[in-house]
């Protein structure tokens, strides 16, 4: 028994924001009330802390199997716990690609041994994510995938995407879509705009994303599939998602902390600013903030993309795309969304919990009988993020040395405290 006392319970599902105690009994929540007295229970004094349902990250890369130099399930999931995440969804672009049940099982078996948090794998949509033939989606679902995506190698043809959506609708799986029109993205290393022209770096226009989003939202309408736009970055694609929702389509989207914090004007010849999709314009950034506030955006996802120094400490054109993100996600959300007054605390928590939960059709509630997954965080703990102290194996983050107000203070998974600051 673990009693979380004196915390501020924020539960978006019930729109609760109140001083309550939470009693955990093994893997489940036993009781939620003010002034719980539980003799014999271990007590966690959460005075001054927010007690939220366990955070879910819909989008990350754990690199195992195949790229263990950059990250492993063990190090990545530990970094996730440090970031307050109780469940993370690794993308299938491992080596080999998670396109069959054997790889899915291998990931889950490894996670069961070493991961402090829940690992919910995402399976490939096409075989080897090559966009030609469907992957073993049904077998992977039985093995435990929670969604389907070809992520960084977006499904190039409308025909295959239609088939994937048809197939996944019947299976009840959401299709996560890295929206990118490949020919416009070819060779590009950042967003096209004044900054790319100044730096002489090849840019991709914002339409690279929205053209693909428009295609796939129409295919979602055609097939009735659940479709989720990964790491959305442009005003136009956000408008397309909004319009889709208004039509009643099962369309959702996520936004990353780096896209709502930085813009293409921040890009310098430092590969920690190279990610795909690239940082957008100021206008896009402002649209994302508005969408996070007004409910159009369903989730904050990290797109935690660790890369070993040898893959990043190269000239800009040659560097891998992506930055790490678990440990700074909440702090950046507090900085950009909460401390600025753009969103309420309940909405902020929703973006990390019930929001991503809805995308996967998983509930997140602080109520008796629910899984004992909780994220406890401070709104005003002052700290400085040091990449060298990260639990991740990789250091590729533009937020190294950034000072924050607010941080995850404890992560509880299945009734066990897996991280405590």
């Amino acid at each position: 028994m673990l009693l979380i006392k004196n915390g501020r319970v924020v539960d978006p599902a019930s729109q609760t924001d109140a001083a309550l105690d939470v009693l955990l009994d093994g893997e489940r929540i036993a009781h939620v009330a003010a002034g719980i007295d539980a003799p014999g229970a271990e007590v966690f004094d959460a005075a001054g802390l927010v007690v939220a349902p366990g955070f879910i990250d819909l989008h990350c890369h754990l690199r195992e199997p195949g790229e263990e130099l950059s990250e492993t399930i063990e190090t990545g999931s530990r970094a996730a716990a440090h970031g307050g995440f109780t469940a993370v969804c690794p993308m299938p672009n491992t080596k080999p690609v998670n396109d069959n049940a054997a790889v899915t099982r291998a990931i889950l078996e490894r996670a069961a041994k070493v991961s402090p948090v829940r690992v919910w794998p995402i399976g490939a949509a096409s075989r080897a994510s090559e966009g030609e033939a469907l992957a073993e989606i049904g077998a992977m679902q039985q093995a435990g995938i929670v969604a389907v995506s070809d992520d960084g190698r977006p499904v190039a043809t409308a025909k295959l995407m239609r088939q994937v959506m048809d197939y996944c609708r019947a299976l009840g799986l959401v299709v996560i879509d890295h929206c990118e029109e490949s020919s416009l993205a070819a060779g590009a290393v950042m967003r096209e705009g004044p900054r790319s022209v100044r730096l002489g770096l090849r840019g991709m226009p914002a339409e690279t994303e929205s053209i693909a989003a428009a295609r796939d939202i129409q295919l979602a309408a055609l097939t009735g599939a659940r479709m989720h736009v990964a790491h959305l970055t442009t005003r136009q694609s956000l408008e397309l998602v909004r319009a889709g929702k208004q039509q009643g389509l099962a369309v959702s989207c996520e936004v990353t902390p780096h896209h709502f914090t930085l813009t293409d004007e921040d890009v310098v010849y430092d590969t920690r600013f190279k990610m795909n999709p690239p940082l957008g314009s100021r206008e896009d950034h402002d649209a994302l903030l508005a969408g996070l506030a007004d409910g159009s955006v369903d989730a904050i996802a990290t797109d935690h993309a660790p890369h070993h120094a040898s893959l990043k400490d190269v000239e800009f054109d040659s560097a891998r795309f992506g930055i790490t993100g678990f440990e700074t996600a909440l702090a950046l959300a507090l900085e950009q969304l909460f401390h600025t007054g753009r969103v309420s605390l309940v909405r902020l928590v929703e973006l990390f919990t019930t929001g991503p939960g809805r995308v996967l059709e998983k509930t997140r509630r602080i109520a008796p009988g629910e899984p004992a997954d909780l994220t406890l965080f401070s709104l005003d703990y002052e700290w400085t993020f040091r990449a060298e102290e990260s639990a991740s194996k990789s250091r590729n983050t533009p937020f190294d040395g950034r000072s924050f107000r607010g941080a995850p203070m404890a992560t509880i998974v299945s009734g066990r405290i897996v991280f405590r600051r």
Partner: protein
Amino acid sequence: MPDRLHHLLGIEPLTRQQIEFLLEQSRPFQEIQRHPLKKLATLRGKSVALAFFEPSTRTRISFGTAAARLGADTMNLQAESSSLRKGESLLDTVWTLEAMKPDCLVMRHSASGAPEFVAERVGIPVINAGDGTHEHPTQALLDALTILDRKGRLDALNVTIVGDILHSRVARSNLHLLSKFGARFTLTGPAMWLPRELECLVPNVRREPRIEAALEDAEIVLALRVQQERLHEPQLSLDDYILLYQLTPERLRRARPDALVLHPGPMVRGLEIDPEVADGPQSCILEQVTNGVAVRMALLYLLLGGPPAETKETARAAD
């Protein structure tokens, strides 16, 4: 100099005073190009690494000549024989070169920003000899020296640039340099090479898709090479380019009578430029090449020679 140069990575970060100083320092080296015996001993015992990760002939020879005329040795790395072909990273290649103890690294690379990336990681001065589609600072300096020779001034020039400006590091460096002297620019060329973002690069930039209108009142005409080897770009019809954008004598008459024609080379006669213009009295193309050696000598001297007392005095004067 106002701020001592440690590297030359681009024109954009330089001040007008730094540019004036570099051009001033190039004067005596211009003189040397006219001597029957051109070799100095100024940098005897020093060595310059020429790392050309992208094929280059004229710039590499120009730097090599500049080093030789100052008495320095050169170490050559060329794309064709580069260990990059064997999978070595840029950084490992550069550190290997550095371990042979050159005093300076002259570097060309197809990736924009590569010289800056390297400069932050080595202990010797780095000179950017052209990086991707970013900058080619010594080209802009030699162009400025050529303009100064002919016009006697750099201030407030009307400059027209013709061609693939989006992908031109020569255009970018020239825009930055001449802009610091108050130039007004008219850019012309095929529309996809003239994105509106170019107007944000420096002040007083105007895009004009018609070459005839773009040349009106021009004092400097910079014709760019048509880069047919660009990756990720659909091919343009060369016949169309010739029809619409070739710098011809008729078109050049729209410019001021004393307008200068510059071209960074390599030049394809009959493509971007009519032979009559290339060889005409307004053309500065070969002077540019000669001045290239002088500018690069000045630069190597400043970065490797260690500033003698007089340089420091000049620096204060320039402040």
